[in-house]
């Protein structure tokens, strides 16, 4: 780097060529006032607050955009500069209301701070803005009387979010920030990420929930990780009087994944922590089984001692009467790594069985099975930050803007700044289609066919990476034979994707320098889920698009800690770090560490435990933080099975649909009340830090498990979650080098991180696959388990929406999210709606062979032809009353993404 020397306020200082004057000043510890500048946005020099005096220059120059030249003489606080700044500030005050005393922003407002610093007389002007304050949306208030027209919100929406909702309108005194035609935000394409709110320097944009809850200087701030999705955004929780006032992402240097960005859930959806519905005391069933109403009325408050004694007694009793195999546990993708570790240890060492699993079964078990087979490791191969440098991104089975909002921002960035070609293969017309080079719409459940078709084209046209195949992979000949049958024309018949589009997609993916493949539940949740995953791996290996930065096969994991729950062994076949229970050496290692004999047999999965319960073979179940009564397929069946259990204990923060089926309900704590770690979808282990004290009698989740263990005769004691992490590191090679201290220092470590010196592994399979050679698996297309017929002529596919999460137990208890999207719907294409005679907004019945629900029709061209879509978050119209419980033969994942339904007008 070339060095330059400049004179800054009379002092000679060294700097790098290309640095702006502002950067140099900051480096020297001189703070310049800025209003329109932000390190996370492109510079514009709109406000001129940062002007400095440069010797020889005719006018003052804005420091934020001007690079320093060698020998430049700069004065940052000369009289001339200070006077100019004061004038700019006074001009701003000419229209700005003088109400700092009651403004929520007070204490964090740049305008206020600089006005104080520069001694501005704020009372000179009378001609103030007269805008009406807009509080029409559920999330944030827009008070343009306080707007200083810095344009940060406009640029945030453009550069960070890529939505371009806002721009300047009008001119002169009337200039203001506006949506097109001043439409309310809810009628624009605003997604309420609030990234504009985070960057606004004044009180013009403010979170609604925070009004009246405290001033900036009163907050205690705790840096922690979002409890919603697998992106793993971090932010500061601002707390006053043990209540969360807001999530603040402005300290962007501490947020490696998301910088200043958050999505609507992370920024505005944390109200659930203080929901009235939170469980505060242990509850026990007080009515005889026959008289149960399956509501909280059936329960009485009891002491912890009584509840824990009873749980231990009943579990012990079942164990001694029916053997350990009659017991099982559902761990949770929402709780911390430490809690998952303790839970699986409890099931294995105390209950004595490998019947432990969690909801990953329902979303990504086929990923774990498929990618482990192909590569030797079942996780995202590359990191989120690499996406922006991709030349081609293939997204399939993922409505990324809704399910992984922050990852979608990286995809948008790649398209916009790196000329990246985006290929979307999705049955629905998802938002990403709008910025794609190619959008292909396959029939749901036909993924193996189009993936094989792409490989057919690549091989036929000689575009495969033969060197990579020869050196690093095995099984190629088989694959070649199998895909030979999948000509684009044949694939068109199966999938509906035009042959030429498929050809083009294949060429782009194969010939781009760095192609990344992203998928999610649209690939995994099928009876052919494992085959689908294997096919994505085949494609990546065929083109050598793996093992380098910005390439790879990247399954986006849904829940905040679903990666961690898998990593820490909440799976029936492996201990922490995917160490097989069937390997005698491993078994011995854990027997020695835990001091008890362990079961060498693979346990039951979530889906098989439900099955076993309905057959009466599974008698007792411990569920921590899961809500299978909304999320499991074929709910009617799951409900019967759970009701059949002799004993069910549910540990949760809410009385969920599942909790009210339990004999005992134990109140755990939310993410804000605990310390621990989550592992996000890119394998990055990050810290969760306790921001508030638990209220009522809520207990730390790991402590509850330890108490039950103790009462069942097994000593399990940890002084903190950190102590648990030490045990994890000692027993889990891939987490070997992970300590709280290191995470805090590095901002998160991606596993494998085998020792304390290891920097973590952003992308996998660099020179060699985890399993040695990459394995091609020749797979053939099979029809989905359920096809449409005359009676059920419509294909239903299910999924998530941006504003809600999972069973909705958190998001639906957060006021703004619930207010914005209070109930579910079914998306119907205009064509199908016309055939059915259904109008937008009308109530319709949707029925499958397993059940029926009534919900509102939304006629939209987001869905195509006879495919309909239902978001699964809404218990009162649960999509999973309809879905098919048919399982993938390998991973035992249910086919949520395809089932046959019929739709009729309600009452008709």
């Amino acid at each position, binding site marked *: 780097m070339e060095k330059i020397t400049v004179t800054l306020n009379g002092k000679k200082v060294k700097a790098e060529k290309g640095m702006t004057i502002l950067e140099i000043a900051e480096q020297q510890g001189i703070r310049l006032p800025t209003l329109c500048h932000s390190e996370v946005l492109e510079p514009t020099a709109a406000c001129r607050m940062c002007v400095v005096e440069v010797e020889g220059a005719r006018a003052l120059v804005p420091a934020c955009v001007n690079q320093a030249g060698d020998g430049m003489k700069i004065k940052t606080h000369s009289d001339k500069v200070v006077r100019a700044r004061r004038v700019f500030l006074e001009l701003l005050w000419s229209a700005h209301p003088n109400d700092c005393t009651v403004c929520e922003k007070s204490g964090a407002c740049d305008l206020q701070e600089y006005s104080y610093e520069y001694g501005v007389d704020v009372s000179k002007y009378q001609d103030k803005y007269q805008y009406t304050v807009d509080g029409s949306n559920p999330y944030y208030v827009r008070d343009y009387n306080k707007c200083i027209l810095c344009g940060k919100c406009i640029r945030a929406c453009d550069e960070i979010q890529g939505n371009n909702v806002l721009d300047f*309108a009008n001119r002169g005194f009337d200039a203001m920030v506006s949506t097109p035609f001043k439409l309310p935000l809810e009628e624009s394409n605003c997604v309420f990420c609030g990234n504009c709110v985070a960057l606004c320097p004044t009180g013009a944009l403010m979170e609604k929930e925070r009004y009246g809850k405290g001033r900036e200087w009163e907050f205690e701030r705790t840096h922690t990780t979002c409890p919603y999705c697998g992106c793993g955004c971090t932010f500061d929780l601002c707390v006053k009087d043990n209540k969360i006032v807001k999530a603040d992402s402005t300290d962007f240097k501490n947020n490696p994944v998301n910088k200043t960005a958050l999505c609507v859930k992370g920024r505005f959806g944390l109200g659930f922590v203080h929901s009235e519905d939170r469980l505060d005391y242990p509850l026990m069933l007080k009515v005889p089984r026959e008289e149960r109403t399956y509501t909280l009325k059936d329960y009485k408050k009891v002491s912890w001692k009584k509840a824990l004694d009873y749980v231990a007694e009943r579990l012990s009793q079942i164990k001694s009467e029916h053997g350990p195999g009659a017991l099982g546990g559902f761990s949770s993708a929402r709780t911390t790594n430490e809690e998952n570790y303790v839970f699986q240890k409890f099931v294995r060492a105390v209950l004595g069985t490998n019947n432990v699993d969690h909801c990953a079964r329902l979303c990504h078990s086929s990923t774990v099975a498929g990618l482990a087979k192909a590569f030797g490791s079942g996780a995202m191969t590359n990191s989120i930050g690499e996406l922006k440098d991709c030349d081609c991104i293939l997204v399939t089975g993922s409505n990324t803007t809704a399910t992984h909002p922050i990852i979608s921002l990286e995809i948008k960035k790649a398209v916009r700044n790196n000329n990246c070609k985006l290929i979307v293969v999705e049955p629905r017309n998802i938002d990403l289609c709008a910025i794609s080079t190619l959008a292909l719409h396959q029939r749901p459940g036909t993924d193996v066919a189009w993936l094989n078709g792409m490989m057919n084209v690549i091989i036929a046209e000689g575009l495969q990476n033969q060197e990579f195949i020869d050196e690093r992979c095995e099984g190629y000949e088989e694959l070649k034979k199998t895909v030979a049958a999948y000509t684009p024309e044949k694939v068109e018949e199966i999938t509906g994707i035009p042959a030429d589009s498929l050809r083009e997609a294949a060429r782009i993916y194969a010939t781009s320098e760095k192609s990344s493949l992203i998928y999610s539940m649209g690939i995994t949740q099928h009876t052919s889920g494992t085959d689908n995953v294997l096919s994505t791996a085949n494609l990546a290996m065929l083109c050598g698009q793996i093992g380098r930065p910005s390439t790879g096969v990247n399954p986006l994991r849904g829940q905040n800690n679903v990666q961690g729950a898998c990593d820490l062994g909440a799976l029936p076949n492996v201990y922490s770090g995917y160490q097989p229970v069937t390997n005698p050496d491993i078994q011995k290692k854990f027997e020695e560490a835990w001091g008890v004999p362990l079961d060498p047999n693979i346990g039951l999965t979530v889906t098989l435990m439900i099955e076993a319960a309905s057959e009466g073979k599974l008698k007792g179940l411990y569920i921590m933080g899961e809500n299978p009564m909304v999320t499991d397929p074929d709910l009617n069946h799951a409900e019967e099975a759970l009701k059949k259990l002799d004993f069910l204990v549910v540990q949760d923060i809410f009385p969920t649909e599942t909790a009210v089926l339990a004999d005992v309900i134990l109140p755990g704590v939310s993410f804000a009340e605990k310390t621990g770690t989550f592992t996000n979808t890119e394998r990055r282990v990050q810290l969760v830090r306790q921001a508030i004290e638990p209220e009522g009698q809520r207990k730390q989740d790991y402590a509850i498990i330890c108490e039950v263990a103790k009462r069942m005769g097994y000593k399990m004691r940890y002084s903190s979650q950190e102590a648990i992490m030490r045990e994890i590191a000692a027993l889990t090679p891939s987490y070997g080098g992970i300590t709280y201290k290191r995470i805090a220092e590095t901002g998160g470590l991606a596993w494998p991180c085998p020792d304390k010196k290891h920097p973590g592994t952003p992308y996998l399979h660099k020179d060699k696959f985890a399993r040695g050679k990459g394995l091609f698996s020749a797979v053939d297309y099979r029809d989905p388990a359920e096809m449409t017929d005359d009676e059920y002529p419509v294909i239903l596919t299910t999924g998530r929406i941006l504003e809600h999460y999972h069973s909705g137990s958190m998001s639906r208890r957060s006021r703004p999210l619930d207010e914005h999207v209070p109930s579910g719907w079914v998306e119907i294409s205009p064509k199908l709606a016309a055939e059915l005679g259904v109008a937008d907004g009308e109530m319709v019945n949707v029925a499958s062979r397993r059940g029926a629900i009534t919900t509102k029709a939304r006629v939209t061209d987001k869905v195509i032809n006879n495919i309909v879509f239902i978001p699964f978050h809404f218990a009162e119209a649960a999509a999973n009353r309809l879905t098919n419980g048919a399982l993938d033969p390998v991973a035992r994942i249910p086919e949520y993404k395809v089932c046959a339904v019929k739709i009729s007008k309600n009452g008709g």
Partner: protein
Amino acid sequence: MQERLEKVLGEYGRSPADLIPILQHVQDEFGYLPQETMDGIAAHAGVPKSKVYGVATFYTMFRFEPLGRNHVCVCRGTACHVRGADQILEHVQRHLGIEEGETTEDGEFSLETVACIGCCALAPVMTVNQEVHGRLKPKTATRTLKKYATADKEEGQ
């Protein structure tokens, strides 16, 4: 409407630089910028809808409502300003019940302001359908407008 729009758009390149000529042409075509044309214009020029709106509101020559049968322009140029253009404008606005840039509900009048019509000697000035009315006082301004309204009615009968 979409067809007419397509035709206009077809004459221009797909570049942000063409935005202003496109807006002008669309306005010539429809007499104003209908809200329904915004999506098409944005897509064609490759800029966000918010930008189209921003640009269109920046320049006073664009309007989002059809002109009234009578088009009133009040001058706010320097000469008119010093001789009380603001008062004239205020009166006209109150009389018509609309702000500048708007059209009365019955479609009778639309109101705009301009900077200097070039008749400074007559200041303060307004034009109605290109006819200049000078040396206005608030009263004479409203009286003038009333004349146009009645003239219309008589014609209509």
